[in-house]
């Protein structure tokens, strides 16, 4: 019995860490998306490009020898600024438009940014990773990647800070109010623009944090790297429950766990189909619980 645990134990722990760290990245991205969706009904496909902007900023700074302690805050800041610009230029003129219109607009912004990336930074750029990225730590019989622990820890810390912000600060409360009822929030005298800009900035900040994790793991940045993460984040938001920030986090972790579990559990022949199975699980979740894992059952419409 003990032998079984000794053998499977480390494996399970490693997989658990894998699931948590993958889930963390998804949760951060999903949260960024959910923030904009809950407040203004915008599904921002260009969120993936915010991620890539973070990556390019990282690359550019490291190329010029900027030390890591400076790289980190700038990588968080750049996507936030880009997001604010996005709001001002592309989305403010469409304030109040239908979901479909906003979705298509975000698609257009995404394509625009991807093309710009292609033109100015066509090939994939390699990122110089600091030496501690590959470090592993031996905890008893377990070997765990330091990076993944740091990622998971930072994500949880971010979630905590975000929760405090949303519950304790007036701006945070205003954002939650706007997510429920934008019109009445304006009736309270809260400036609509302030809330929207704050939402975009936060969404960009979260994308920046996600990009720190994402690109230190992958090691390179390409113009199209944002597409797959944003699709996954989109899915995570929906399975968590649209319009719910907690749901986005839950959905992100759920997706991460599902992927890791399937990856580990599927027989070798079915491995390449792993994502397809995960997607089937997603569809199943939607069918059984259309309001998402965390959402409240919706009425007749």
């Amino acid at each position, binding site marked *: 019995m003990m032998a079984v645990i000794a053998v499977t134990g480390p494996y399970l722990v490693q997989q658990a860490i894998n699931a948590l760290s993958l889930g963390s990245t998804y949760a951060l991205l999903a949260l960024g998306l959910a923030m904009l969706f809950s407040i203004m009904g915008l599904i921002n496909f260009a969120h993936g490009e915010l991620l890539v902007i973070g990556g390019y900023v990282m690359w550019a700074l490291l190329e010029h020898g900027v030390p890591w302690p400076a790289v980190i805050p700038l990588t968080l800041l750049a996507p936030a600024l880009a997001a604010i610009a996005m709001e001002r230029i592309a989305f403010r003129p469409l304030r109040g438009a239908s979901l479909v219109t906003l979705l298509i607009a975000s698609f257009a912004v995404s394509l625009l940014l991807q093309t710009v990336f292609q033109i100015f930074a066509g090939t994939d750029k390699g990122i110089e990773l600091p030496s501690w990225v590959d470090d592993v730590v031996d905890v008893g019989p377990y070997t765990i990647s330091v990076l993944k622990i740091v990622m998971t820890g930072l994500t949880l810390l971010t979630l905590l800070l975000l929760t405090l912000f949303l519950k304790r600060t007036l701006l945070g*409360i205003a954002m939650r109010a706007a997510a429920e009822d934008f019109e009445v929030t304006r009736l309270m005298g809260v*400036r609509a623009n302030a809330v929207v800009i704050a939402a975009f900035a936060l969404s960009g900040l979260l994308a920046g944090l996600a990009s720190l994790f994402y690109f230190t793991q992958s090691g390179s940045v390409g113009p199209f790297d944002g597409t797959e993460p944003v699709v996954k984040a989109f899915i995570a938001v929906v399975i968590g429950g649209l319009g719910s920030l907690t749901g986005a986090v839950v959905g992100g972790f759920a997706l991460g766990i599902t992927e890791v579990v399937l990856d580990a559990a599927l027989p070798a022949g079915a491995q390449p189909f792993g994502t397809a199975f995960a997607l089937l699980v997603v569809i199943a979740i939607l069918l059984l619980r259309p309001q998402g894992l965390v959402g409240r059952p919706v009425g007749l419409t």
Partner: protein
Amino acid sequence: MAPLLEVRRLIARYGPITAVREADLAVNEGEIVALLGANGAGKTSTLGAISGLVARSGEIRLDGREISKLRPEQIVRRGVSLTPEGRRVFAGLTVAENLAIGGAVRRAGAGEQRERLLELFPVLAQRLHAPARTLSGGEQQQLAIARSLMSRPRLLLLDEPTLGLAPKLVALVFELIGRLRAEEGVTVLLVEQNVHRALDLCDRAYVMRTGRIEVEGTPDELRRTTRIEDAYLGIVA
């Protein structure tokens, strides 16, 4: 003395539909004015237009200054607060958070205002940290009104505050409105379906039908004429 609120030739539109056609009304400081009429008469739209939520044209003056071109957030800052129809409290936020949002516009002294309101609405003090969705209809109505009062408005617009409430709560709400005027000096423009009680409480009233003001006068004058029934097409509370 000039009225606190003066509305002239107000037109309110929802796209191609005109909900209010050339309405004139005035509210003097310290008054409780009722806006009556059947469903669809344009009462809610009138309040919405004054608050800036509905596309409008015409003159709307608060303290003699034009507010008809301002955005809702700006109008609140000028001292007009709307408690919308159906209460529309923030269901996922706690009572305290709802009040906090109400006071976002007037941060200075918000603490004292909150204390005063919690005295006026003791049930809110008891449920201070409960999510608003767990409150009963009557409690939510009180929360909605309290939330509007957090910004210490000079003019309070109330849209059907007794809608869907049990008779005992209806009485409570009307009593509350009276106290607000007496103790807080709030001027009130009240939209109501409950004609009888509204006439008991108000100083003056307007009756609307299909977007126009049909009748105006004091409660006594209105009770004497039969045009209220006409305006309501036979339905009188």
